[in-house]
């Protein structure tokens, strides 16, 4: 028996395999980097607060650093593969562009008024901006992290950030920005759960209308 939907629809690949694989590797890497990073922060807090013990990875400073300096390779190399793919396969150009301040303003207002509908396989202007910011924050985390790891060997890079102590703060705020993105990202997945399945299978059902 076949069910004929009212509107003609079909399954299309909305997330290419490379994007799905790098997405899930990144999820694991970011999880390790965030929670071990919070444990490292707690060893000498920059600001008058500490992260709760349950939200840290590694148990003690040595364990947290071991996690951070192991997962950093996963985060950086996987991120590099994703960015290379995004640029070379024109994934960024087709998914995140065009993008204009006017479009962001229009879609942001529509979203806040709950008038913005989710279109499978197509990002609205606010999403495009958010993903580009997340990628920029990732690059900033790697660059400032390199400055913190090697402030002598790579002192030119550390100087770009204003030296070791400024690099610490930039690393922290880039982390905070990425953590904010992840919260928003997870909240939207809860609102539209089928996006989670699409990031696993890569496929989503779209109506012929949308495809055209």
């Amino acid at each position, binding site marked *: 028996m076949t069910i004929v939907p009212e509107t003609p629809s079909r399954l299309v690949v909305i997330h290419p395999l490379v994007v799905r694989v790098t997405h899930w590797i990144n999820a694991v890497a970011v999880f390790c980097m965030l*929670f071990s990073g919070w444990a490292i922060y707690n060893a000498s807090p920059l600001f008058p607060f500490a992260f709760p013990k349950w*939200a840290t990875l590694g148990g*003690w400073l*040595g364990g947290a650093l*071991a996690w951070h300096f192991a997962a950093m390779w996963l985060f950086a190399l996987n991120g590099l593969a994703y960015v290379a793919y995004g640029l070379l396969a024109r994934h960024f150009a087709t998914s995140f562009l065009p993008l204009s301040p006017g479009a962001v303003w229009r879609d942001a207002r529509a979203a806040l008024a709950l008038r913005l509908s989710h279109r499978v396989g197509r990002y609205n202007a606010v999403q495009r901006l958010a993903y580009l910011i997340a990628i920029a924050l990732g690059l900033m985390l790697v660059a400032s992290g390199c400055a913190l790891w090697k402030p002598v060997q790579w*002192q030119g890079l550390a100087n770009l950030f204003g030296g070791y102590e400024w690099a610490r703060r930039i690393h922290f705020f880039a982390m905070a920005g990425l953590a904010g993105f992840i919260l928003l990202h997870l909240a939207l997945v809860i609102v539209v759960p089928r996006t989670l399945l699409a990031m696993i299978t890569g496929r989503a059902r779209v109506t012929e209308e949308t495809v055209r």
Partner: protein
Amino acid sequence: MPRDPDDAARLKTLRRDLAPDLARLERRMVLRGGLSLGALTLLSGCDLSTGSNGSLADRVLWAMSRANDRVQQWLFDPATLAPTYPASMIDTPFRFNAYYPPDNIPEIDAATWKLEVSGLVADKAPWTLEKLRALPQESQITRHICIEGWSQIGQWSGVPLRTFLERTGADLTAKYVGFKCADRYYGSLDMPSALHPQTVLALDFAGQPLAPEYGYPLRVRVPTKLGFKSPKHIAAIFVTNDYPGGYWEDQGYNWFSGI
């Protein structure tokens, strides 16, 4: 003490056979004790500190740390100098930092203090403070970066470790320079870092003989490495090809820890 040479030889063989197992066991226990994964345990519901997963995670992390040693050795450029700063940027007061509280700072009598030298060196005669002061001295104002994240700028002066190693006829092709301290701390450097022009056996801090909390009478100062790689209260220096480890390194801190 073994009574005859046969016993001594047997004991030596036994120790050599056991050493790798003991070392493995030691670091596994130490890392495992440390890796109670707050967040991961919460999400996965399994306690990695007791399960077989725990030892797998530890083994992977330990292997990654050794791989990071090699990457850092490769990244280390002997000609790259740590940035230096004007005297106006020196931080005061400078933090006391050790694995024990200030009450436990060792009291050392300069009159009886001697620096022992052993291992792959030609001249194993001990050194006095006067003899060290008679060697060429170097001064630096550099940033001390702690593994905890904080940093402070300080001024150290003393004998370049390279000068000291050359004077004692050390084998400069050996792999490691090790340090034993009066406070039972110990540590080691790779030879290229030991020979770096800014690596000094510091006698002075902020223009004064080292205060007890900063490592009197002698400490290492390695501005190309994290702070814990600069042991204080040095009592003995040795040159070796056998990995000497270190107080924190044996508990899981990365050994090379270059910056």
